[in-house]
């Protein structure tokens, strides 16, 4: 199994392109959505990271920012929306509620305890709600993860192996 220099460079280029054009979906659930809007507005300006283009439809989005409490009624819809997104897709869980149920975990009979129960999550951002900076940091963490992905290499290994 050889890992040529060309393959590595092409891989790096691909993941560079991916990480710098993450298009999030306009998907606000609760309080965190307001902070997400504030992040997209002028003071914090998400566009600087190439992910300010909030798409109204899941089919054009790469990143789902689950911003807020996921209730049991909403959980199936979240799953549907995630399934409608085209690959490659990433999920960022924003705030305590989406991470683990947050303040509603104990008596919340109608609250899903963490969005990871229905969709796989890449990055968890803490906070209730997270500061816009914290969300940006979460997106940068996700970008790091994407940068380390080796798309072609995976395929190459599959092909050769």
């Amino acid at each position, binding site marked *: 199994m050889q890992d040529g220099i060309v393959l590595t460079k092409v891989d790096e280029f691909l993941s560079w392109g991916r990480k710098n054009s993450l298009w999030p979906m306009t998907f606000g659930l609760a309080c965190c959505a307001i902070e997400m809007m504030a992040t997209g507005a002028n003071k914090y300006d998400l566009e600087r990271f190439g992910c300010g283009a909030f798409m109204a439809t899941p089919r054009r989005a790469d990143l789902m920012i689950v911003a807020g409490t996921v209730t*049991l*009624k909403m*959980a*199936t819809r979240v799953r549907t929306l995630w399934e409608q997104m085209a690959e490659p897709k990433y999920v960022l869980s924003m705030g305590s509620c989406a991470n*683990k*149920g947050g303040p509603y*975990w104990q008596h919340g*009979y*109608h609250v*899903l*305890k*963490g969005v990871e*129960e*229905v969709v796989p999550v890449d990055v968890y951002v803490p906070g209730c709600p997270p500061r816009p900076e914290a969300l940006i940091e979460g997106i940068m963490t996700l970008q790091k993860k994407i940068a380390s992905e080796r798309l072609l290499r995976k395929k190459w290994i599959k092909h050769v192996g």
Partner: protein
Amino acid sequence: MLDELVQELKSKFPNAQVQLHNPPEGVGSSSIEITPQSLREVCFYLRDQSPLKFQVLQVISGIDYVDYLEVCYMLANFDLNRSYEMILKVKLSDRVNPSLDSVSDIWPAANWQERECYDMLGVVFKNHPDFRRILCPDDWEGFPLRKDYVAAKFYNGMQVYPDHKMNLEERSYIIHSKSQAEELQKKSLAKGL
């Protein structure tokens, strides 16, 4: 003002068993209790003929007192010169199949409020135009705000309280055996705690 209203209601509706509840310890709001059978006529009277004219129904709140259920109607008068609000109460002794006449034709606001009351406490409102759950999904079981409500373990294949997320390990405060405890204590002491 409420006393006058009670006197008036008593004379107009002898069957309604109108009672005035003053706050037991002197603070809070007073309320008027009537029988469930006379609810509709009293409501019609309060809206159209009573001198206070309660033209707005603000909210319907249900309370579970374990032995019986209670439905409270918060009525308000939106007169610019003398605004007034009032709590009208109905006691439902049948806790298994509580039912009450709908007032959604008297105040359209009651439409959604009654649906919420049903969703949370299971009070069935008769002659309601569109009677179904409002906040919880349609296939939800149980009435969450009843005091004896136990949350379902599963809903739609999703675990409501997944064990691995309930911090069981940390919450089981003192379960260590003596030797374990001593070991932990030693470790902590070494850290200077």
